[in-house]
């Protein structure tokens, strides 16, 4: 943000340059449409309940206005939304979107790297493929933005995740190196050598080495940062770009990994910590005593409800999978579908996310998961979410946790022009998006799945084989 402001000031008066920067900032596309959808049921994503008979206006790739009685400016294409719903695009927190073509095909799967000598230094950004079928399927399901991370495998650190948009264009990364991911639960313990004790020692050592490296490592002048893409990129530590820096001999981390953890330990980059058990959650919250600048986000937290007051008091947000209700592991004994509702009631900021697969946990099912949170409000003894809360948990809240508050996942003046026009209640199983806009650009709706659907609409091969049917 501050980097952008400085550039803006320096470019004062040079309108073209200023527009160019603004474009880079919002992801404005030359082919963005100015569009107004009128008389629709509108859910803004901010936690409020849906509004009937409302209008949403997108102009220059951004939301201009949303609500009842909003006037349609001249020159804007009007779409009648009668009987339809309009929402911001959904935000899928913690996915593998763009990192694989099919999970089980090792040759094409970049979601984890057990054999890599690096951990924290891994950066998903250069590996992302916006043409992956999973990106297209998720977009067809109304998801317009996501955070993407690699799973910890060879190291307790998964590496640096990115914020992306799912637009059908070559530029997928909205914000590279937006967060670091570490696993301190059973998985992390196994990777660390066999115990949680080992994982905590590894983490502490890594953060101390990074702190020391950040303070003492000699910066040299040969490294050069790339162009700023979004105006608020976390600047790459120059030692990551090039050149050695002096280090002591008693170190465990590679230089590359140590440099990658500098922004974590100094609080410029969020640290996502995957844990499920209540005791583990509290151990994570206690890390702030030793490393006060950590910006923690809890991931998983199946037993979060039983530590909800502590999480709320620490002001740490949570990305929860929401539907876990089985003791799938000994760290999830207290799992219940009421977890999210109970944490929200305790004052925790909770996003539904972590749908990183292609089975029941595919990102497209986010809306179904949110709908189930609403269903719980009718189950005696359960704690669910109101419709508005449930929808916020898959739109504005994951955007806020991802550092995109006010810019994504919400229909608010100035936010990205990500709109979804649904044929009904977006949380209902029978509904689906009819049109999807990202930064004001209408998105294509054909992918591998729709191609197969259309080819096999009938099984008629009287004239030619199916291979000619497209």
């Amino acid at each position: 943000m501050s980097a952008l402001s400085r550039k803006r000031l320096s470019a004062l008066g040079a309108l073209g340059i200023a527009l160019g920067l603004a474009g880079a900032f919002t992801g404005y596309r030359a082919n963005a449409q100015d569009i107004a959808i009128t008389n629709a049921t509108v859910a803004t994503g901010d936690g409020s309940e849906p509004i009937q008979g409302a209008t949403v206006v997108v102009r220059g790739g951004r939301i201009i206005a949303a609500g009842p009685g909003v006037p349609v400016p001249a020159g804007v294409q009007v779409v009648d939304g009668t009987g339809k719903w309009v929402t911001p695009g959904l935000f899928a927190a913690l996915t593998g979107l763009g990192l694989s073509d099919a999970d089980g095909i090792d040759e094409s799967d970049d979601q984890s790297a057990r054999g890599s000598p690096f951990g924290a230094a891994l950066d998903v950004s250069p590996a992302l493929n916006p043409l992956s079928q999973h990106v297209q399927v998720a977009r067809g399901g109304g998801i317009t933005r996501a955070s993407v991370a690699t799973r910890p495998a060879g190291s307790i650190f998964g590496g640096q995740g990115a914020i992306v948009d799912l637009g059908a264009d070559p530029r997928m990364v909205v914000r590279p190196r937006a967060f670091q991911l570490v696993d301190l639960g059973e998985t992390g313990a196994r990777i660390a050598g066999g115990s949680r004790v080992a994982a905590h020692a590894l983490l502490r050592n890594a953060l101390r080495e990074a702190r020391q490296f950040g303070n003492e490592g000699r910066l040299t002048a040969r490294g050069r940062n790339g162009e700023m893409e979004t105006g608020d990129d976390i600047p790459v530590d120059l030692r990551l770009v090039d050149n050695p820096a002096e280090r002591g001999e008693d170190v465990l981390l590679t230089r590359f990994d140590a440099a990658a953890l500098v922004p974590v330990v100094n609080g410029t980059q969020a640290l996502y910590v995957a844990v499920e058990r209540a005791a583990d959650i509290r151990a994570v919250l206690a890390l702030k005593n030793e490393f006060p600048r950590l910006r923690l986000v809890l991931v998983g937290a199946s037993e979060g409800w039983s530590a909800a007051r502590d999480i709320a008091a620490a002001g740490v947000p949570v990305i929860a999978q929401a539907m876990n209700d089985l003791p799938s592991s000994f760290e999830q004994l207290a799992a219940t579908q009421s977890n999210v509702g109970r944490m929200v009631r305790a004052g925790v900021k909770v996003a539904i996310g972590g749908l990183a697969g292609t089975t029941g946990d595919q990102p497209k099912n986010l809306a179904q998961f949110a709908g189930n949170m609403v269903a719980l409000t009718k189950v005696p003894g359960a704690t669910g979410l109101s419709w508005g809360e449930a929808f916020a948990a898959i739109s504005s809240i994951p955007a806020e946790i991802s550092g995109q508050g006010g810019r994504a996942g919400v229909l608010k003046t100035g936010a990205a022009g990500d709109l979804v026009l649904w044929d009904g209640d977006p949380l209902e199983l029978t509904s689906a998006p009819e049109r999807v806009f990202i930064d004001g650009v209408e998105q294509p709706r054909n992918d591998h799945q729709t191609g197969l659907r259309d080819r096999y609409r009938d099984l008629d091969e009287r004239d030619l084989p199916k291979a000619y049917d497209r």
Partner: protein
Amino acid sequence: MHQRFLIAGLGALALAACANTTNTKSASSTPPVAINKDPYPSTYRPYPGRPMALVGATVFDGTGKRIENATVLLRDGKIAGVGGAELATAGYDRVDASGKFVTPGIIDIHSHLGVYPSPSIQAHSDGNEATDPTTPEVWAEHSIWPQDPGFTRALANGGVTSLMILPGSANLMGGRTVTLKNVPARTVQGMKFPGAPYGMKMACGENPKRVYGGKGRMPSTRMGNFAVNRQTWLDAKADDGKKRNLATETLKGVLAGDILVHNHCYRADEMALVIDMAKEMGYKVSTFHHAVESYKIGDLLRENGICSAIWADWYGFKMESYDGIPENAALLSREGACVVIHSDDENGIQRLNQEASKAAAAGRRMGLTIPEETVISWITLNPAKAMGIDKLTGSLETGKMADVVLWNGNPLSVYSRPEKVWIDGALLFDSSNPRLRPVTDFELGQPGVGDVK
């Protein structure tokens, strides 16, 4: 007492039927050894229930019928009547079900509960005897842990009253399946569905060739898969039955039509080859499981009377699932082929109703409108048929087992959940009564014990 007698009678009948087919095909002069075909018999007995009248609900009866403002009568563990408001309810406890929905108990044809139970730790990995590509001699029931908490979630959140547990898919022939009533019990025999036939799990494609190719042995290719399968069938047919052989007994049970084949198979071309192999060897495939490409051969599946047990929308998690599409169920239904929605998952089994709804909605968007009452048959009567228990359960028809779910709204809506579930007329889940929420041994004294889950 009356119920107990009925069930016991049924079990004896099934046993007698089995005895009649024992190795009658053997041409040897030495009489074959006698085989007890039910050595681990069901000890399940229905729990007591009161005569119940569910009044005023919308009924999807499982056979494809919808009845508004319906009356459903349960007595002595059986469906005693299904009709409109005119049905007399004297002598029954009345449940006001107006604004609610009633369906048959949900049936999952593909579950690994108990053989891959929660917590999913290494010590609980009992679903794949992955030491030999053909293990028709293993029986899933010998691996089942009845204390798997997954059973209770399937009941409370999914309304599941019957389910088939299969061995995994590492092997070409994975072993015998077992059908259970979703009733908590101290032993697996206490869960076994009385009178249900056995199934045999088979698997096509990537899994067997990967597992055994990875061990440097046959099969390591799809052609290897078929060669091993065919030779195994031929060897079983050549067995003279003089010495008991558990593997052969299962295979001969299939050839005799007593054991139903449940074949994990994703790709359309591979299913077509399996259909020919079955004809070559003289058996019938009941159901292709995980059949993500069934929509490419709906005609073939219809002609051969084979069901497809599928997910609503899983795709792209391995090469052979790359062509999965959400319209699969609807396209099959349009071809007149049998559709079953299955879970293969301890989470998915808790919302088969939701999965069926998504599959139907995908069809509607391409112009294939399938009535809600038909969609419910995908998770009730159709799986019952494919499992060979459709004469006993799977629909709300007089005389059938009173396996019934009362939903607090339309079961095809994301906002609905089971309110009450009866199994053989016994109320075994009631969302408003914490005493009627089963808790496994494993969960006693643990964090969250007895929670709503």
